[in-house]
């Protein structure tokens, strides 16, 4: 089953008189359960493509489908609703809410979805276990290491049972060990929960985890093949 598809999308950024074609006629289809890496040199359009897949941004032309639904027609609120249930994000910097504990950060999407307290509690505990953070449930982000924060971020992204998780350079700010740990957790969750993972990366040590590697250059897909 296809969870996401982009057809012939372009995304043009205009800064003053200068137009940048961040994406230039990209078509890509993502199947359920994929563990896919977007690779390519800096400025090739990886982040831009993730933003379109994540309904954070709209293409200049072309269409984006999530779960078969054309999302280019949706307004801000409708896109927020769609993201809330269907898409999880993991960012390069460890994007947790600094005033909330690990537990509360993971709980946030469930609160936004209006889940019952008992249901929330169970889900958060389950996820804390899954990412090996149960011990540190009540620590705030500034009391956690980068690797630990990123594991909490993965747990948060996974909380609402999303269709897919989009990760933009999830290991870029981590040392080798922590990077490997985060990748292994994502891989394990992908295998156990069949959640689709798409991650953008430069890091060859990360690319080796991917089942599929999509290579971008100058806003175009130049290679799409199996990893390893």
């Amino acid at each position, binding site marked *: 089953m296809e969870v996401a598809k982009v057809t012939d999308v372009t995304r043009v950024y205009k800064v003053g008189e200068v137009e940048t074609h961040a994406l230039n006629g990209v078509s890509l289809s993502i199947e359920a359960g994929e563990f896919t890496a977007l690779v390519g040199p800096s400025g090739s359009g990886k*982040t831009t493509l*993730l*933003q379109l897949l*994540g309904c*954070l*941004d709209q293409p200049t032309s072309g269409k984006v489908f999530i779960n078969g639904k054309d999302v280019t027609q949706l307004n*801000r*609120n409708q896109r*927020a*609703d769609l*993201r*809330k*249930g269907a898409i*999880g*994000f993991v*960012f*390069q*910097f460890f*994007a*947790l*809410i*600094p*005033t*909330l504990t690990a537990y509360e950060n993971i709980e*946030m*999407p469930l*609160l*936004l*979805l*209006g889940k019952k307290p008992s249901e929330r509690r169970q889900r958060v505990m389950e996820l804390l276990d899954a990412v090996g953070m149960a011990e540190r449930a009540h620590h705030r982000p500034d009391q956690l290491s980068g690797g630990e924060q990123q594991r909490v971020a993965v747990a*948060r992204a996974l909380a609402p049972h999303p269709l897919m998780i989009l990760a*933009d350079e999830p290991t870029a700010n981590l040392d080798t060990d922590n990077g490997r740990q985060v990748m292994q957790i994502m891989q394990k969750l992908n295998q156990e929960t069949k959640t689709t993972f798409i991650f953008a990366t430069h890091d060859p040590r990360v690319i080796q985890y991917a089942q599929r590697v999509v290579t971008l250059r100058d806003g175009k897909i130049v290679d799409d093949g199996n990893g390893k």
Partner: protein
Amino acid sequence: MINYFRLAYRNLGRNRRRSALSALALGLGVALLLLMAGFFEGEMRSAMESSLRLQSGHLQVRPVGYEEDKLSLAWEDLIENPEQVAAQIATLEAVADAAPRLMASGILTVRDEAVGVQVLGVDPASASNAPYREGLLSGSFLEADDREGILIGRPLAEALGLSAGSKVNLLVNTSDGLVNEQAFVVRGVYSTATPTLDKLVVLMPLAKTQTITGAQNRASIIFVLLKDREQAPVVAQAIQGKNIEVKTWQELNQLLIETENFSNAYLLLLNLIVLGVTATVIVNTLVMAVFERTREVGILAAIGMKGRQIMTLFLAEAGFLALGGIGFGLPIGWALCAYFGKKGFYIGDLGITGMAFGERIYTYLTLEAASSLLITALILTLLASLYPAILAARLEPVEALHGKN
């Protein structure tokens, strides 16, 4: 449900000093405005009280067409047989006291100094003289048959260096349009704590005033005090007579009531200005917070928080700051009002002639004034905070992915 208040509370805790200072600004504003409100209300109350006791009474019976400022002594401008009229009015159940008063303008001279005064002829036995009798500082009160005694107020006594026993010369207008002059003895010095009147009013027994002015058996007004002043319009209806009209204290204190309306409008303006400034401080704090937390707002938006919810979060922070400020300012303002309600502010002679302003203002804070101020403070702060809240709600979630701090 998202607990916006918990989130907001923690967010404010991130920069405690800044949050505390902006709440403090509002708190000080609120305290100051409460004091101002107490000050104005106290002033108006005491002016009204003084006027009722000294100038207007609760009712005045006077000749048709009487002109307050003219102090006319022409016979057609006076009430005939005033004692009889007063006695009749006094029989009414609601009336506490009714006494004739004869007013005349005069000039008091001592050595080579001359001062314009208002001679107030009163029946020394009347209860309506209580403010003067109780305010007697030295000497003795007037006797009904005293032919050369007067009482003067403290400001006049101080200005002219007079005391009980001093001799003065008094020039008084008369009914036939001329003047009459006679030497008097200051029997006593009084103070009603109303310098604007005390410097002007010279008390004289009614009988003597009638002879010296040639008014004979006439008076300017019947000064009526009621048991309950709210009865004034009803009692006014009950008093009938040829060539007389009855004015209630509301009608007699038009100017004061208008002044009060004006001062309320002025106070409202002052409130809006001060609260506008304090709201700006809070808005500024929140705008800084929005810019500092751009990425965080982006993250919240990315995980599905809607603009409306982000707005609510920032408005909750504004609400906390407002409540914190009010919680700080209210007890201070209240305490200040309580203190100056007891001790009073000394303001001395405001120099407003004709209006009964006291020399001290005792603050008086009404629940209505306090609550309307606090509600205005809260609403104004929240309204102003819509700006940073909307600013935050409009941020693009894309910001979150860019990794900018």
